[in-house]
């Protein structure tokens, strides 16, 4: 926030002042860790990544509701591991020689050949399930961390100005769901007052759905009127011609990108369709975006900026992924422990140190601001009684 001339002072004193980082920085960090997790099945490394993620989330998440959703992702991760291992019991896991226990196998008809229900379970296949599940769980928890650390709505705000309308639509749509749930709850309670649920199921459903939809429609009309009278969509200076050019550039560019991506992934298509088309398509589309953004006369209140702390956070995530890629070239067995002969998976120093770089944001980023809001979840969703009082239809 300091003037450019005082950047040095800002470095010294302002770096650790509490503020919310650019959401992009946190997402790059989490994606770096997720990519790293995808490269390995070594449980030690995966558990280290999990520890790093949890540590940073606890150190740097805010008190906002989306930040509290992290434990849901964590639960989801545990569920993934349990399922992966459980399936090895049910559908048999007899690969390998160390049979741990044998269930009576359920014979299946001939057309289900290849599927086995129960039977022998080997340690190797269980371990395979565990490693695999752990890897997937770690990646899911990494995404959860991104959600907890960065306000998803701020990420939408950071989109290029040409996509502003899309961003607004998404924000409005996101706010509809809690409102729908709220009015459904209200109407259902009101239905009890009229003697509750008599009649056929369809009829009962109708008695709830119609008032809820009416409510939603009412609300969206209100919102549209409010947005209109507050200047949403004020015409820019763009003339028809300029608008036409922009649209043409974007469409041509996006077609180029599609063709390019297809050609890159499909080895049989001529090579000149691959990289050159992809690159030129991207350039044309970017140009369109720039043009579209230029005719937007909107400004942004307190935009998130990339400052040193953001770079540190993003770089540490990239470093973790890079370290993992580097190790997989040198020492692949260490990252994917063998499942054929059972032994304790080994852990070498290089990938471990690489993963530990990811913990830097917990120490080298400013803490989030407190929202001065001591009981948001209770007031927001916890008191259905009081909500209608304010949510007048």
């Amino acid at each position, binding site marked *: 926030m300091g003037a450019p001339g005082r950047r040095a002072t800002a470095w010294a004193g302002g770096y650790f002042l509490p503020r919310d980082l650019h959401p992009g920085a946190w997402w790059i960090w989490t994606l770096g860790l997720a990519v790293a997790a995808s490269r390995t099945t070594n449980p030690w490394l995966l558990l280290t990544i999990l520890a790093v993620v949890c540590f940073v989330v606890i150190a740097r998440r805010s008190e906002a509701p989306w930040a509290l959703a992290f434990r849901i992702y964590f639960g989801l991760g545990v569920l993934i591991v349990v399922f992966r291992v459980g399936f090895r019991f049910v559908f048999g896991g007899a690969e390998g020689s160390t049979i741990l226990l044998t269930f009576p196998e359920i014979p299946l008809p001939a057309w289900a050949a290849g599927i086995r229900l129960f039977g022998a379970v080997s340690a190797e296949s269980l371990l395979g399930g565990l490693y695999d599940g752990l890897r997937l769980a770690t990646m899911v928890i990494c995404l959860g961390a991104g959600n907890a650390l960065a306000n998803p709505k701020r990420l939408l705000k950071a989109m290029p100005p040409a996509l502003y309308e899309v961003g607004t639509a998404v924000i409005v749509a996101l706010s509809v769901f809690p409102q729908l749930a709220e009015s459904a709850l209200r109407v259902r309670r009101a239905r009890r007052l009229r003697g509750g649920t008599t009649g056929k199921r369809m009829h009962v459903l109708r008695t709830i759905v119609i008032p809820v939809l009416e409510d939603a429609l009412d609300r969206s009309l209100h919102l549209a009127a409010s947005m209109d*009278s507050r200047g949403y969509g004020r015409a820019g200076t763009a003339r028809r011609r300029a608008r036409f050019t922009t649209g043409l550039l974007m469409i041509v560019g996006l077609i180029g990108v599609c063709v390019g991506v297809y050609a890159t992934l499909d080895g049989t298509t001529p090579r000149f369709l691959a990289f050159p088309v992809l690159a030129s398509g991207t350039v044309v589309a970017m140009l369109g975006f720039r043009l579209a953004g230029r005719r937007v006369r909107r400004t*942004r209140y307190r935009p998130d900026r990339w400052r040193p702390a953001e770079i540190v956070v993003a770089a540490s995530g990239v470093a973790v992924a890079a370290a993992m890629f580097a190790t997989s070239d040198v020492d692949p067995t260490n990252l994917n422990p063998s499942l054929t002969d059972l032994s304790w998976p080994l852990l070498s120093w290089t990938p471990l140190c690489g993963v530990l770089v990811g913990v830097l944001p917990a120490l080298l980023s400013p803490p989030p601001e407190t929202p001065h809001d001591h009981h*948001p979840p209770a007031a927001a969703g916890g*008191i259905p009684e009081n909500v209608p009082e304010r949510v007048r239809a």
Partner: protein
Amino acid sequence: MIELADVTFWYHGQPEPVLADVTLAIGEGELVLVTGRTGAGKSTLLGTLNGLVPHFTGGHLDGTVAIAGTATSSRPPREFAHLVGMVGQDPLAGFVTDTVEEELAYGMEQLGLAPPVMRRRVEETLDLLGIADLRRRALRTLSGGQQQRVAIGSVLTMHPWVLVLDEPTSALDPTAAEDVLATLARLVQDLSTTVVLAEHRMERVIPFADRMLYLPGDGGVVDGTPPDVLKDMPIGPPIVALGRLAEWEPLPMSVRDARRRAESFRAALRTTTVNRAPAPAARAEPLLTGSGIVVRYGATVAVRGVDLDLHAGTVLALMGRNGSGKSSLLWALQGSGPRQGGSVRAAETDPARLPAAGARKVVGLVPQNAGDLLYLEHVADECAAADRESAAEPGACRALLDRLAPGIDPRAHPRDLSEGQRLALVLAVQLTASPRIVLLDEPTRGLDYDAKAELARTIAALAAEHRAVVVATHDVEFVAAVADRVAIMAEGEIISDGPAAEVLSGSPAFAPQVSKILGGDWLTVADVRAALPEAVG
């Protein structure tokens, strides 16, 4: 600044115009109060000021509405965003973003103001409205009064010339409403913003208003200073009714005016006393006994061990600020809402134990959003459904409805009824089950003076049938007119409970205007009129 010239407006498919040949001009720094019955065209008139009518609503507008010299017909409403700030009835429905600060900035972002300007204006507005400590709060977690102030702030940051508000205080408790009105008065005084607001409960606004537009409902507009307009208006706040009764000239607009004028009047009243029926409280066995009622949502305690008895033939008014636990208590008494502790006994059972259809025969509740109870396309269908639901003989509901609000078209859609008619329909639906205890949650919201008087008569009739009635409301004047007993809630507890006159006149926040002027037990103009037959002449 605002000029309406020969404005006539029809909604599609309606034979009569809502506004007919309206010509008026509103200048800088005026506070204009728009009043009139429900459906008289208040919202329509306000909507024309930035072009939402007819650009957004449809319909046909003749004549011109010009803001700062630009006709609203020439461009869409968004092009007037920097001139006219519009605040709707329900602030929450108009919010686009999710935190206070972003909401304040939203309009400026659309105008394309430079970031430093936006930053400064947001800070100024936060201070001006006294909401600086809420800046990072989520909008949904704010109280009604705070939301309303944020909604005002979100248009103020665009520095509009005119601020247009449609019933800004209708959902607020008396204190929150005072806050919002004080804010508006300050804007007019300090920044000379022009403010145009529509309000049903005008008693709180007229002391601030420079000018009044009364829509009698025939399409015309009566324009003048508040005392002039109120003199010939059939509806009016108690202070005006008292002024008419005492033949004060000009009519007093504020409690202070009236009190200074009322000296001789008070002296005349000293010799008489309020002629009121004795409180029937301890007369008989209570119809409903609640003791130690606890309602909680997670860690939040909404009702904290409340004891309450309801007696036949008594009207109890439940008051208290938004979120003080009134609704939770009513729902718990009815048995449909959650109740974590304590007991409720009515008709020898606990209504919460009964099936929904049975509980409704013991305790009837009309919830805050009364319309939630209705889901069919015609009034007649709703009535038939109510007869079936309560196993009453066919026609019972319709008979009740005709008593409460005669002449409602059975083919009408419930959504098309006026607020008062819809309330009557819901009340009729609930009364079809003939409960002896009737609970009404915020029934006066959106009702004009006539509809409120109608509701007061209905409530008195219910009490006369030896039912127990509970009304949860913010409307002090309404309570003064209907209630025998008043209980005030705060933080989930009943903090005072007693005869209406005692509780109301004892507190400055809840005292009705007549009591503020004449002091003591005088609650309504009707009390005074009854005590002074000779003064009426």
